[in-house]
C-alpha cells in the first residue's frame, strides 16, 4: 500500500518498483480513470506491458470524449441531444446560436460536472465556457441543448467479456434533469415510468454499453421527455460511480465486487449472488421496497456561496432511506440528513408564517401576497438546498400540484405524495390522540417527535403510547429477490408498512450482541474517518471474540454499510427513536457510540436515560467533557489552564468581558440565523454586528465568549483510555496557527517544532484529563501552545478525525485498542513515547471543494470548510509535505511568477524572508501597490507592480494575468484583523482568491501556510519525493 498522489508521475514510479502485469482503473472514481488515460496516452502502460482490466482505454475514451460519445450513441441507435464540441468561445457561441439558448455547457475530463453550467444568454456562455476550457484536461467543452424539465433516469449496467449483460438497478431523479444527480433527490427504482418507458431505456442502456465495450460495471444517464417517449442518452460513466455505490446499497448487489471479478475474467453466470449464495449473479434484482437518496449540503459553512443547484455538484454527502412508501422514505431521509428537521412537516419553526428565508423576524404584513407568491415560485424554478421544504411551503400556501410541477419540473406523483404527508399533519392536529391516525401517520414516516408536536406530547410520551398499543415497526430484509428465494440475509431496515419481522430474536433474555453506531451522512466535520472508526471497532470487537455485531448507519457511501462487515446491518436512521426501536428488538449486551463522530456521541445521554447500556466511557463522563462548565471545573481541579471564557445572556455583559480580556475574542452563539456558527471578532463593533445581525443573544440563546490567543500553535493528542491506563497514540502538531479549524489545518506527526518540555506537559495533561474523565475508549484533546504555555481547548471522548492518520503512520490501530478498552480488557504495553521514536514524518493536508462551491471565499477560519483530506509519509518533513500538497491538487511550480498581496505591516515583515527566498529561487515577483511599495523599500528591486481586478483599465491587470496563466501561485494574506472574513470588505482580494480557485492556481492565505509552501518549493527544486510503501517508512 502506497500513500501517494494519484498522478502519472507517482503511479509510474510505483509501476517501476512493483512491475504489475495489470491495472484496474474503474474503482477510484474519475481521478483514477483520468490518471489511467494519462498513463496510456504517454505510453507508460505499453512500456511496462501492463494490461488494463475491465473496460479498455478505447472504451473509456468513447465515453469520456463528448464527440466520440455522441458518435457511439448514434451508431448504437440511441438518441442524443443536439450538441457540438467547441475549443474556443467563438466556436461555442456559433454552436449555441445554432442550437438555441438555453444551452448546457459540459466540460470534457473533469470531476462531478466541474466547471459546467447552463447558459441562458451570451453573457453566461462566455463566463462558463472560458472557465470550462481552462479546467478541461483537453481544453474542450460540449455545448448541448438544455432539457431541464425532462426526467433524469439512470441505469446501472453489469457486462462481461462474453456479452452477458444485466441491469442491476434503475433510478429516477426527483428534481429531473435540472439538477446534477449528485445533488438530486434520487429514488430507486424509478416511480413514474411505465413498462414501455422502463424497457425502452433498459434496451438502450444495453445497446449503448455493449457498443462501448463496457467490461464490468457502468452507469448510464438518460433524459426522458415527461410528455412522450422521446429520450436521449446523457452520459456513460465507464467506472464505478457514486450512483453505483448507491445502487449497490439500494439492491444488495455488490457492484464493485462483481466488477472486479469480471475484470479478472469471470463471466456473470459463473458468479454467485452474494446474498442468496445459491442463485446466479447474472440476474436483475427485484426490490420489494423503495429507497430515497437525499444529498446533504453544508452551505452554512461558506460565506458568499451560491446555494442554487444545477449542473455542478455541491453536496458533501448523502443518506439513503429504505421503506415501503415514498412518504415514509422521504421523511426518513430528511431525518437522516441531520439538518435539524424531523421530516417534511411538523418541524421546529414550522408554525411561523409561511414566508421564505430568514425574513421571518420581519413584519409579515409588509408583504403583499403577490410578493410571497413570487418568492415561492422563484424558489421552485431555481431550486436550492431547501427545495423540498419550499415544495411543502408551496403546497401549504395552496398552490396546485400542476402549477408546482410546471415550475419545479418535479413529477406530480412525488408532489402528491408530499401532499399526503401535509394532509396527514392537518388531520393529526385536528384529532388529538386518535389511534388509527397514529398508525397511519407512522406508515407515512412520521416520527414520534412530529406526532408529539401535533398532540402537545413529547417524544417519550408518544413512544410510550405506541409501546402500549403495540404500534411498532417491523424489521424487513433486503434479499435482492423480493423474498422469492429463501435468503439468509443480514441486510435490514425497519418499516411500519408490514406486520411481521423477517428475523426473530430470542425472547426474554439478553442477547450477547453489541450494536455499533455509525456516523451518518458525510458532511463538513464528519467524514470517512468516522466510518473507518466504525468498521475498525466492529473488527476489533470481533477479534476480541464478540461474534454478534450489529451496525446502525444510513450513509450509502460507506464501508460500514456493506452488509458483510457486521453480523447484522440496520440501514436506518440514527435518531433516538429508531436506535431505541432497534435496541428493543435486539435486546443486546450494549451499544457503542464513541466511534460514529459527534452524531453518535450526541445520542449518548438520551440513550442512557432510556436504560441503554452504553459501552465505553460512561454517559456521565461524556457529559463532563461535553458540558463546558463541568469540563472547565474539571480542568481547574486538575490545575490545567484554558483560555478564559464565559457564558452570556446579554450583549452588554459580553462587551465588558471582551474589553477586560482584550480583543480578539472567539464568539459562539447558540442560535445562528445564517452563516458561520463561530467567529473571531476583533473589535466591539464587530462583536455587536455579529451578535445582533447574524445571531441572537437572550436567556434562551446564550453566547459563549472566550479569549482568542493570537499566534498560538495548535496541538492535539489522540489517546485510548482503559480501566488501568491511558495509551498515547501521538502528539499531533498543526502546521497552521490556531484560528484555523482543526479539520482545515495541515497536521504533522510526530511534532516537528515542539520542545521537549512542552511535549512532556502535553502528555502529563492528557493522562490527567483522561484519568479524570475515566475514559474507556478513544480520547482526543485539543491544546493551544503559546510561549511554551499549554492551554486546553476541548476534549472529545470519542474517535477523532486524526485517528486513522495516526493509526496508519504508527501501524498501531487505536480503534482496535479502544475495542479492548470497551470490553474491559487489558491494553498491551505501549510506551507513551513510542511516537517520538518513529523516524520520518506523516503530514495530513485538507482537501477543499471551493471550485464546486460557486462564490465561496476560500479564506479559512474557525469554522471547518474542507470536504476531505490527504496524507502522505516521508523521510523528512518536506518529503511528506510535498507529496501531500500534490495529492491535494496543489501544483508545485519550480519557476514562473508569484503574485504577492499581503495586508498589514506585521505580516509583511514576517513574510519578508520568504519573499526573498522566492526571489532567490528565480521566481518573478508580482505585487499590488502597497505590497510592492513595502518590498521595494526593503530592497527588492525586481518587483513588478500589477493592478487590482477592480481596476480593469490599469495594466498589467491581475485578471488578465490569471486568465493567461501567467501567475503560478499567489500569496494573499489579509491583515491580521481581517483573518475572519466578512462580506463587503476586501472585495478585491476575494476576487483574486475566487478567480485563482477557478483557474486552479494555488493561493496561500496565512503566514504559516506560505512559509511551508515556499519552503516545499525550495526543497523540491533539489530533491525528489520518495516513493515507498507505507510500511517502509
Amino acid at each position: 500500500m502506497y500513500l501517494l498522489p494519484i498522478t502519472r508521475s507517482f503511479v509510474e514510479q510505483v509501476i517501476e518498483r512493483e512491475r504489475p502485469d495489470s491495472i484496474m482503473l474503474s474503482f477510484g472514481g474519475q481521478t483514477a480513470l483520468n490518471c489511467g488515460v494519462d498513463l496510456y496516452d504517454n505510453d507508460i502502460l505499453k512500456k511496462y506491458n501492463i494490461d488494463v482490466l475491465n473496460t479498455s482505454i478505447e472504451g473509456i475514451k468513447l465515453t469520456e470524449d463528448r464527440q466520440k460519445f455522441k458518435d457511439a450513441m448514434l451508431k448504437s441507435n440511441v438518441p442524443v441531444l443536439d450538441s457540438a464540441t467547441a475549443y474556443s468561445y467563438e466556436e461555442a457561441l456559433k454552436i449555441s446560436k445554432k442550437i438555441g439558448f438555453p444551452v448546457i455547457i459540459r466540460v470534457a475530463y473533469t470531476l462531478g460536472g466541474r466547471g459546467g453550467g447552463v447558459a441562458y444568454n451570451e453573457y453566461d456562455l462566455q463566463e462558463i465556457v472560458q472557465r470550462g476550457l481552462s479546467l478541461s484536461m483537453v481544453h474542450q467543452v460540449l455545448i448541448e441543448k438544455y432539457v431541464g424539465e425532462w426526467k433524469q433516469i439512470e441505469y446501472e449496467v453489469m457486462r462481461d467479456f462474453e456479452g452477458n449483460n444485466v441491469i442491476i438497478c434503475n433510478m429516477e431523479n426527483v428534481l429531473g434533469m435540472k439538477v446534477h444527480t449528485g445533488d438530486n433527490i434520487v429514488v430507486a427504482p424509478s416511480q413514474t415510468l411505465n413498462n414501455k418507458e422502463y424497457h425502452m431505456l433498459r434496451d438502450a442502456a444495453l445497446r449503448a454499453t455493449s457498443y462501448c465495450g463496457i467490461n464490468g460495471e457502468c452507469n448510464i444517464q438518460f433524459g426522458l421527455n415527461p410528455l412522450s417517449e422521446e429520450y436521449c442518452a446523457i452520459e456513460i460513466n465507464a467506472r464505478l460511480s457514486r450512483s453505483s455505490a448507491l445502487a449497490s446499497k439500494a439492491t444488495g448487489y455488490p457492484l464493485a465486487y462483481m466488477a472486479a471479478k469480471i475484470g479478472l475474467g469471470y463471466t456473470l453466470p459463473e458468479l454467485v449472488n452474494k446474498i442468496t449464495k445459491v442463485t446466479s449473479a447474472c440476474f436483475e434484482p427485484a426490490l420489494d421496497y423503495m429507497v430515497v437518496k437525499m444529498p446533504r449540503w453544508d452551505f452554512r459553512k461558506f460565506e458568499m456561496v451560491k446555494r442554487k443547484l444545477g449542473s455542478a455538484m455541491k453536496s458533501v454527502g448523502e443518506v439513503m432511506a429504505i421503506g415501503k412508501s415514498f412518504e415514509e422514505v422521504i421523511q426518513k431521509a430528511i431525518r437522516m440528513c441531520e439538518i435539524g428537521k424531523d421530516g417534511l412537516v411538523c418541524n421546529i419553526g414550522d408554525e411561523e408564517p409561511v414566508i421564505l428565508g430568514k425574513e421571518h423576524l420581519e413584519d409579515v404584513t409588509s408583504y403583499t401576497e403577490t410578493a410571497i407568491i413570487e418568492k415561492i415560485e422563484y424558489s421552485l424554478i431555481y431550486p436550492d438546498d431547501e427545495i423540498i421544504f419550499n415544495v411543502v411551503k408551496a403546497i401549504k400556501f395552496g398552490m396546485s400540484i400542476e402549477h408546482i410541477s410546471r415550475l419545479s419540473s418535479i413529477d406530480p406523483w412525488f408532489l402528491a405524495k408530499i401532499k399526503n404527508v401535509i394532509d396527514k399533519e392537518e388531520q393529526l392536529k385536528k384529532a388529538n390522540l386518535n389511534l388509527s391516525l397514529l398508525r397511519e401517520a407512522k406508515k407515512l414516516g412520521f416520527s414520534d417527535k412530529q406526532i408529539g408536536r401535533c398532540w402537545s406530547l413529547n417524544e417519550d410520551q408518544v413512544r410510550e403510547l405506541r409501546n402500549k398499543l403495540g404500534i411498532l415497526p417491523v424489521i424487513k430484509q433486503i434479499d435482492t429477490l423480493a423474498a422469492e428465494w429463501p435468503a439468509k440475509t443480514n441486510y435490514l431496515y425497519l418499516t411500519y408498512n408490514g406486520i411481521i419481522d423477517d428475523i426473530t430474536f430470542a425472547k426474554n433474555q439478553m442477547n450477547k450482541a453489541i450494536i455499533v453506531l455509525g456516523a451518518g451522512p458525510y458532511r463538513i466535520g464528519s467524514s470517512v474517518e468516522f466510518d473507518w472508526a466504525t468498521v475498525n471497532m466492529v473488527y476489533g470487537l470481533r477479534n476480541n471474540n464478540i461474534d454478534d455485531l450489529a451496525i446502525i448507519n444510513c450513509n450509502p457511501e460507506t464501508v460500514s454499510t456493506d452488509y458483510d462487515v457486521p453480523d447484522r446491518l440496520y440501514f436506518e436512521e440514527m435518531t433516538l427513536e429508531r436506535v431505541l426501536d432497534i435496541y428493543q428488538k435486539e435486546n443486546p449486551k450494549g451499544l457503542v457510540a464513541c466511534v460514529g463522530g459527534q452524531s453518535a456521541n450526541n445520542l449518548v445521554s438520551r440513550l442512557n436515560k432510556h436504560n441503554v447500556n452504553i459501552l465505553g466511557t460512561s454517559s456521565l463522563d461524556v457529559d463532563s467533557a461535553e458540558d463546558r462548565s463541568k469540563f472547565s471545573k474539571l480542568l481547574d481541579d486538575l490545575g490545567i489552564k484554558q483560555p478564559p471564557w464565559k457564558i452570556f445572556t446579554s450583549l452588554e455583559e459580553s462587551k465588558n468581558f471582551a474589553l477586560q480580556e482584550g480583543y480578539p475574542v472567539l464568539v459562539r452563539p447558540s442560535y445562528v440565523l445564517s452563516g458561520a456558527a463561530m467567529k473571531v471578532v476583533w473589535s466591539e463593533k464587530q462583536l455587536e454586528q455579529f451578535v445582533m445581525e447574524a445571531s441572537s443573544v437572550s436567556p434562551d440563546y446564550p453566547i459563549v465568549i472566550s479569549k482568542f490567543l493570537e499566534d498560538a500553535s495548535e496541538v492535539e493528542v489522540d489517546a485510548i483510555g482503559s480501566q488501568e491506563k491511558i495509551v498515547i497514540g501521538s502528539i499531533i502538531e498543526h502546521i497552521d496557527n490556531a484560528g484555523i479549524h482543526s479539520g482545515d489545518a495541515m497536521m504533522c506527526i510526530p511534532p516537528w517544532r515542539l520542545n521537549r518540555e512542552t511535549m512532556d506537559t502535553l502528555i502529563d495533561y492528557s493522562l490527567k484529563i483522561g484519568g479524570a474523565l475515566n475514559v474507556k475508549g478513544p480520547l482526543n484533546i485539543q491544546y493551544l501552545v503559546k510561549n511554551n504555555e499549554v492551554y486546553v481547548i476541548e476534549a472529545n471522548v470519542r474517535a477523532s478525525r486524526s485517528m486513522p492518520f495516526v493509526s496508519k503512520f504508527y501501524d498501531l490501530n487505536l480503534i482496535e485498542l479502544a475495542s479492548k478498552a470497551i470490553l474491559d480488557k487489558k491494553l498491551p504495553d505501549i510506551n507513551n513515547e513510542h511516537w517520538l521514536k518513529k523516524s520520518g514524518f506523516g503530514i495530513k493536508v485538507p482537501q477543499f471543494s471551493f471550485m464546486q462551491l460557486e462564490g465561496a471565499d476560500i479564506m479559512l477560519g474557525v469554522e471547518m470548510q474542507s470536504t476531505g483530506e490527504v496524507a502522505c509519509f516521508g523521510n523528512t518533513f518536506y518529503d511528506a509535505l510535498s507529496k501531500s500538497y500534490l495529492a491535494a491538487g496543489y501544483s508545485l511550480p519550480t519557476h514562473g511568477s508569484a503574485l504577492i498581496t499581503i495586508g498589514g505591516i506585521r505580516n509583511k515583515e514576517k513574510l519578508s524572508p520568504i519573499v526573498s527566498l522566492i526571489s532567490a529561487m528565480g521566481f518573478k515577483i508580482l505585487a499590488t501597490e502597497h505590497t510592492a511599495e513595502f518590498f521595494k523599500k526593503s530592497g527588492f528591486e525586481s518587483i513588478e507592480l500589477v493592478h487590482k481586478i477592480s481596476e480593469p483599465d490599469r495594466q498589467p491587470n491581475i485578471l488578465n494575468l490569471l486568465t493567461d496563466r501567467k501567475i503560478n501561485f499567489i500569496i494573499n494574506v489579509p491583515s491580521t484583523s481581517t483573518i475572519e472574513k466578512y462580506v463587503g470588505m476586501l472585495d478585491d482580494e476575494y476576487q483574486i482568491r475566487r478567480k485563482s480557485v477557478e483557474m486552479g492556481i494555488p493561493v496561500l492565505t496565512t503566514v504559516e501556510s506560505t512559509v511551508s509552501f515556499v519552503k516545499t518549493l525550495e526543497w523540491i527544486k533539489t530533491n525528489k519525493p520518495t516513493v515507498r510503501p507505507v510500511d517502509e517508512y
Partner: protein
Amino acid sequence: MVGYTETMTDPSYKGQILCFTYPSIGNYGVPSMDNLDEFGLPRYFESDRIQTNGIIVNNLSNVSSHWTCVRTLDQWMYDERIPGITNVDTRELTKKIRSHGVMSGKLMMEGSEDLIEDKFEYDSYNFMPEVSISEPKLYGDRNNDLKVVLIDTGTKFSIIRNLLKLGFSVVRLPWNATLKDILDYNPVGVVISNGPGDPIICKQTISTASEIIENSIPTLGICLGNQILALASGAKTHKLKFGHRGQNKSCIDLDSKVTLITSQNHGYGIDSDSLQNTDFEIWFKNIDDNTVEGIQHKNKPIIAVQFHPEASPGPDDCLYVFEKFKELVKKAGIESS
C-alpha cells in the same frame, strides 16, 4: 414495479389472485384502451379486459401521474368489477407462498358474509373457453404470403404485435382448432400461445400439436404453447413447487451460451428427463434451478420457449426468438418450393 396493466390483462393470470411484491402499485395509473399501436392493438394491454380475479398490494398509489394516464388503477378495477386489497404485508405473504407453494385464496370484506365456495379446483379447471377467441380473427393483410396461424390458448396481444412487426399476417384461431382448421388458411407457420392452467387440460390443442409436429409445420410455442408441444411429443409436464413469475429470470441460450433476462409466468414446467425419449432437445435453461425454459426439435423447424419473448411486461432481450421463427419459416418455404 412496472407492468401492472400488461400483467393484469394477461390471460395467463385467469383464475388467479395476484400478489405484487413491489410495494407501490398504480403510480402511473392506467392508460386508455383506445390508445392503439400501428396494428390497431391496444398499446398498454395484453387483452381487452382485466384477467386476474383480484390483486393484493402493499400500498395502492392513490395518485397517478403519467401522460398516458386516463384513470387510476383503483378506478379501472372498479370499472371492471375486479376486487383488490391494499395495506397487506406482501413480503410476508410472498414468503408464505414461497414455502407452501401456490395456494388458493379469497378476498373478503371484513365482517361480510362468506359467499365464495371454499374449494376452487384451479388445477383441473378448464379456462380455455373463457380466455380463447370463439371465432377466427385476422390481423394484418389478408393477401399476405407470410400468414401464420396463432392457436389462441389465451394469447397476449404482444405475441400478435411481434408477429405483425416481422411482416406476418396472423390468423387467430380458437384453442380447439384442428389441423384441418389450420391448413384451411394455408399458413407458413403456426404459433401456439401462452395461457392459464395445467397444460394437460388442453387435450384438443395437444392432439392438434402432435399432428403439426408430424407434418413438420414450422411452429413456435410460447409458455403454455411450449408445454403443449412437449406433451404432444410425448414428454411430461409437472406443477412447479415454486412457479416462475417475474421480469428478472435469467436463462441461458444453450446455442449461443449467452445468459438473458426473461419475463416469465409459469406454474408448470417440462420434465427435463422426459425429453430424452422425444425428438426435442433443451434450448433454454433457467440458470438458477435448471428448469427447462425452451426446447427445439432436433430435425424439424419447431421451437418453443417457456418464457415470454414478447415481454410486455419485462425485458426485450429475447425478441430474437420471433426472428428465429421467421428464419425457420423462410427456410422451410425454400425447401418446400
